[in-house]
């Protein structure tokens, strides 16, 4: 609802101008709308032209016109002001309410009158970390992070081992039971055993989960304390021990280059890059990349040893508190948790490495859940208000019923097109993850540009604009896994839709942020064929205008 400017009580007043031409006495009467919007010189020029007024009164006319408008405008101002004051004295407007409103406006918007800021640990830590990571100490930081990572992954592999053992043991047991089924054992017994197995698994998993939680908690605390200490020490140049420490440490952990392994890893990923220009007259340059990969590959740290890992880590760490963040769109269902499907896989990846900066994923999701409930409550109260108003004003209320339906669902769930955001410092190439809710509709072939998922993408890009996320990865087909119904025509149709919509949104973005260059990565599932990939990569330059290659020869 946009507040329009106050009802301008337009009044018409008559401007009268008298002059003598020879013996004739002439009177010019002009009705004028107040407040006067138009330019006085224009008005004057038009009057001269329209009424054929002799040029010898030109200046007189102008002067009297200007004085007339000035004095009448002042009178209007006075009237308005006095009406406003009248409202106060008559009690039509409550003086307390009014002054409180002013006080609130000042307190909320100006630094001078705002309440002093309570210091926030997060931001202070952010500053400290950002400073350190851009100093020679960055190497030490990364090494520390890495060693923590190693210990967590050891823990995880231990857990996996134990779980595996348990599962093997249980399988053997189960086999035995199954063999005895119908002889000494009944169905009932089998069920009991199965239930026992499940419980045992749960207990083990919980045990490990709490252990992991504890370890990462300790790591995070140690890490943060260490960072603060390092920062203090660095500030104090007398204390040179830590500097020495940095120097010593930096020589450690030189990466053993295992080119072969890396090559193998990279080969599975197909990717192609494009530089494009957007805009009709003023063109802005952006980078696009078409990548065939698993969405979680962007999050997972590669196993230690392979080259480029450290660089990538450094890159991610350097830009964490900068103004060029990397985002990823993850397609999720309508529940805010991490129990199933891609959400579970993602949560597993998040656990592989301690997040030293942001809360754990489950904590973040809990918060999101609260926010969702709050948002729903806000919405429904606002809607109720609006409905009341509408009924009050007896105007049409067609569109509102639509939205009511949504509210009848579980308010804790989210609906397609909505998304929540989680922040991570421990993923390989991503800082921000947009969890975009989609439903089964995206699997069908006939979604349009008006589909909630597409609108969700638009809002995601908008957040990218407002929060300096300069690299964003979008699942091109709006699915993470391929299935039978996704035929070649389906893929092409979907890709075309998403390409075109994203192009439109990017052009729109240029008006939001003044055309900052961005990188958009389109991700296609690992399982599509190479041929399909090339078809898609051929489609891209037909939709986006790819910039011409720079020719370095001097002649044509």
């Amino acid at each position: 609802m946009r507040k329009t400017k106050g009802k301008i009580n337009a009044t018409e007043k008559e401007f009268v101008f008298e002059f003598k031409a020879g013996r004739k006495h002439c009177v010019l009467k002009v009705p004028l709308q107040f407040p006067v919007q138009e330019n006085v010189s224009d008005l004057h020029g038009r009057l001269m032209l329209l009424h054929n007024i002799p040029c010898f009164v030109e200046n007189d006319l102008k002067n009297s016109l200007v004085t007339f408008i000035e004095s009448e405008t002042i009178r209007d101002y006075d009237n308005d002001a006095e009406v406003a004051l009248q409202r106060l004295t008559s009690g039509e407007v409550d003086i307390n309410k009014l002054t409180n409103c002013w006080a609130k406006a000042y307190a909320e918007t100006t630094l001078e009158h705002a309440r002093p800021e309570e210091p926030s640990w997060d931001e202070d830590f952010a500053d400290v970390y950002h400073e350190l990571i851009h100093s020679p100490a960055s190497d030490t930081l990364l090494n520390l992070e890495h060693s923590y990572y190693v210990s967590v992954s050891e823990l995880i592999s231990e857990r996996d081992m134990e779980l595996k053992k348990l599962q093997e043991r249980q399988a053997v047991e189960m086999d035995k039971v199954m063999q005895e089924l119908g002889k000494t054992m009944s169905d009932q017994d089998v069920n009991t055993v199965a239930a026992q197995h499940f419980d045992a698994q749960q207990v083990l998993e919980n045990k490990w989960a709490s252990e992991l939680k504890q370890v990462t908690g300790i790591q995070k605390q140690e890490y943060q304390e260490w960072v603060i200490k390092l920062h203090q020490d660095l500030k104090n140049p007398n204390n040179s021990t830590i500097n020495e420490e940095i120097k010593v440490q930096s020589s450690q952990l030189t990466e053993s280059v295992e080119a072969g392994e890396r090559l193998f890893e990279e080969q599975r990923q197909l990717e192609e890059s494009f530089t494009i220009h957007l805009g009709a007259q003023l063109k802005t340059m952006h980078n696009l990349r078409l990548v065939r990969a698993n969405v979680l590959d962007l999050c997972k740290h590669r196993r230690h040893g392979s080259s480029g890992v450290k660089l990538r880590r450094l890159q991610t760490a350097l830009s964490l508190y900068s103004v060029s963040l990397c985002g990823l769109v993850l397609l999720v269902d309508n529940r805010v948790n991490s129990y199933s499907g891609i959400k579970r896989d993602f949560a597993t990846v998040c656990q592989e490495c301690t997040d030293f900066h942001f809360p754990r994923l489950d904590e973040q999701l809990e918060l999101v859940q609260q926010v969702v409930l709050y948002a729903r409550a806000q919405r429904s109260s606002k809607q109720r208000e609006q409905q009341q108003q509408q009924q009050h004003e007896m105007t049409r209320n067609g569109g509102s019923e639509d939205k009511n339906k949504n509210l009848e669902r579980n308010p804790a769930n989210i609906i397609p097109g909505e998304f929540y955001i989680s922040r991570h410092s421990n993923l390989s190439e991503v800082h921000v993850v947009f969890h975009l809710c989609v439903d089964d509709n995206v699997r069908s072939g006939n979604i349009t540009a008006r589909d909630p998922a597409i609108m969700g993408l638009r809002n995601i890009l908008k957040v990218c604009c407002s929060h300096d996320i300069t690299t964003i990865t979008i699942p091109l087909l709006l699915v993470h896994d391929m299935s039978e119904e996704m035929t070649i025509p389906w893929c092409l149709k979907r890709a075309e839709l998403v390409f075109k919509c994203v192009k439109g949104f990017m052009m729109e973005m240029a008006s939001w942020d003044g055309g900052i260059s961005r990188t958009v990565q389109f991700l296609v599932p690992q399982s599509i064929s190479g041929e399909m990939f090339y078809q898609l990569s051929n489609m891209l330059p037909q939709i986006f205008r790819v910039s011409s290659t720079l020719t370095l020869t001097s002649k044509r």
Partner: protein
Amino acid sequence: MQPLRDAQLGAFTFFASALPHDVCGSNGLPLTPNSIKILGRFQYLKTLTHPRLCQYVDISRGKHERLVVVAEHHEESLKDCQRRGKPVSPDRVLQIAFEILEGLAFMNKHGMVHQALSPHNVLLDRKGHVKLAKFGLYHMTDHGADVDFPIGYPSYLAPEVIAQGCFRSTDSSLVDPPLPSGPKSDVWSLGILLFELCVGRGILQNIDISERLKFIINLGVMDDIVTVLAEEHGCLEIIKELPEKASALLRKCLTFLPSKRPTPSELLEDSVFEGVSCLYTPYQKAAGLFSSSLRCAHLELPEDISELCKDEGDDYLAERSIAEVYHLWCLAGGDLEKELTNKGIIQSKPPVCTLPKFILEDGESFGQGRDRSFLLDDTTVTLSLCQLKNRLKEVAGEAYYPLLEDEQSSLPQSSSSNELTAAVSLPLIIRERDTEYQLIRIVLFDRLLKAYPYKKNQVWKEARVDIPPLLRGLAWAALLGVEGDIQAKYDSIDKDTPIPTDRQIEVDIPRCHQYDELLSSPQGHVKFRRVLKAWVVSHPDLVYWQGLDSLCAPFLYLNFNNEALAYACMSAFIPKYLYNFFLKDNSHVIQEYLTVFSQMIAFHDPELSNHLNEIGFIPDLYAIPWFLTMFTHVFPLHKIFHLWDTLLLGNSSFPFCIGVSILQQLRDRLLANGFNECILLFSDLPEIDIERCVRESINLFCWTPKSATYRQHAQPTKSTTDSSSLGKTPSYFSTSEFQDLPKTDLCREPLKLAELKAEVSPRISAEDLIELCELSGPAHFKTPVKKPKPGKAKILAVDIRGSEDFNRGHIPGSINIPYSSAFGPDGELVQCPATTTTLAGFRGRVIVIISNVMKNAATFAAHLVRVNYPRVCVLDGGMNKMKSTGLLTVPSPQI
């Protein structure tokens, strides 16, 4: 604009309020961001120049709706007087009051109200005179509608302002947004301010804002507000001892009811200022360029000329205008946001910390904490000029005052002049970023333009080097020969009465160069509409064609605060380059234009021309928007500026060369592609390197014989009296417009369109041939344009008559290739000595085909083009034209 003198440059920043997510305007287009609205309204403030007001200089948009305003600044303010804690003497108070009122009255006259009057916004310059700061905030934010924070300071708000309420109240009971305040609100604020000065302390400082406001509102029931205020603050003694005049002033200002309170201009005339007003002379605006009054009418030179320079110190930079200094400051590496960040005014949090948590389908976000860095901190930061001064240390004093008399050396002869001449050869983009170079160019152009139209010729001369971006608007006006009282003329055009074209204009404006902040602002749209309407109304024989809006854009952008000049430039530009393009039925003009264009393509690039003709990709399909808008529809503004800097120096046939050079940049792609791809390519024209385009089009222009681009629908020759009034206007490449030359029988004669279309190659006039062949022509030819390069004739005349005719008399230097024998049945050039050696040897020069049968000549030329001979043209009228000149020779019999 006034010189900088002892003032400083200051910057302050604030945020425009964010738009509600996803709301469309009534026309279905997205809403204009508030920051752009503010930016548009701000422009007017730059034109307000008054000794009591801080000159506004610039506004810039940052990320996330941040705005940074640059204005004149002084370090000292009334706040400092207040801080001293001593009452200011009543005389001084009166003086300050008078000066503030002068400023306020001037603002009111321009429809503005200060609203944010407070001690720290009343600055004092070195001499102790008042300079009002932040006076434009209320205006540029549409009375506070476009920002979240209230404008004004709680203690100084007038009661009626408080009563109106504030914007953005979340309370739904106060639905009506406040009405704008009038000039009298400032008088109240002034009263409070003066009261504080008189008693030497701030008032109402220690209580809560809402209590403070309540206190002010409740003053309405008091009889004597001044006494009540004094009692409240325990300074009744001081107030009682005030002289009669001062206390009368206070009472007048602090009148509760606005209707009883005087306006600033009424107060200025009041008797309380009897002793003060005589010390001041009312400010008079100096007459600018293009005004009806005499610019130097009031110039009085002292007896002794040297007295003039007496009070000028060594700081020459300070004598330049504020806008120039700021422009140079930016060039010297000034970065507004950095300055503000260094002073801690801009504090930004890492974006990763401020992300929202949850976003609804319609884009509303939740879970985002209030970001403190978005709060208003309106401290003004002084921009240090050290870096700039360092940069300009080497520039000699003479550079600031170049002598214009000497036609030979326009650049000052200083130690750095050698560097400067070297700088001229650098790419334009680099020159435009070079502080020192720009300083010298700006100073020079400023002086030349001040002497316009007297120095018109020198403006032309200097414009050939380059035009400093800061003065481009005026420089273009000078190049276009705008003269006279343009403002009066513009005012007298009726721009308000609805006309049928309004609807189309309304549709086109929101689609024209909207990436630009100025042109997309509502103010920009209003101005656009007015200038376009003015043009349509004042040219009854012409009509509005789509594209006129694009054509208007560069002029409006450059002269945003001077609609009259934008209008005048456009009115001068259109007849020069687009004569009759805007006729209701313009098809004959455009058809002829496009035909000449395709002849030019064939002339300069036969291979490309052959290919395009083959696939049927004719200029009608792509070039109409190019020429109808003079390329403003296809290029962004910054490229148009560079293109037009050169275009304005050329004549009306220069656009052809630009068109050809654009095609040549895309040559490879065009040659490689078929019709469909070409259409696609031009529907969204790829990036064009504009500097290269300009360079190549100049080159093409030099190769084009003047008469090759003859058009019968071009602008007819101006009457001689008109052009001789100021001497001939020098043009860049040729002495004058082709059409300006006196008509002789050696000129080109008009052709029917169908005939013109049938010919592949352009015709040239006999005149041109004579000139190009350097034949001793008739006497009426004045000066040779291009210096003859000995031994390297640029032209080859090919006589295709039979050899007998040739031997009977021909043009000196011409060769004979009889038409009948030259080409084989399938259009191949027949191998004969004349063709193989001579023609091939002269490949690259202009080849003029001469015949006595025009049709034969045209066919011959078409054949040559077919086999990719560049620069082929045909002599108009053929041999018969030449016969009358008596220039033909008979070859001496061969020995």
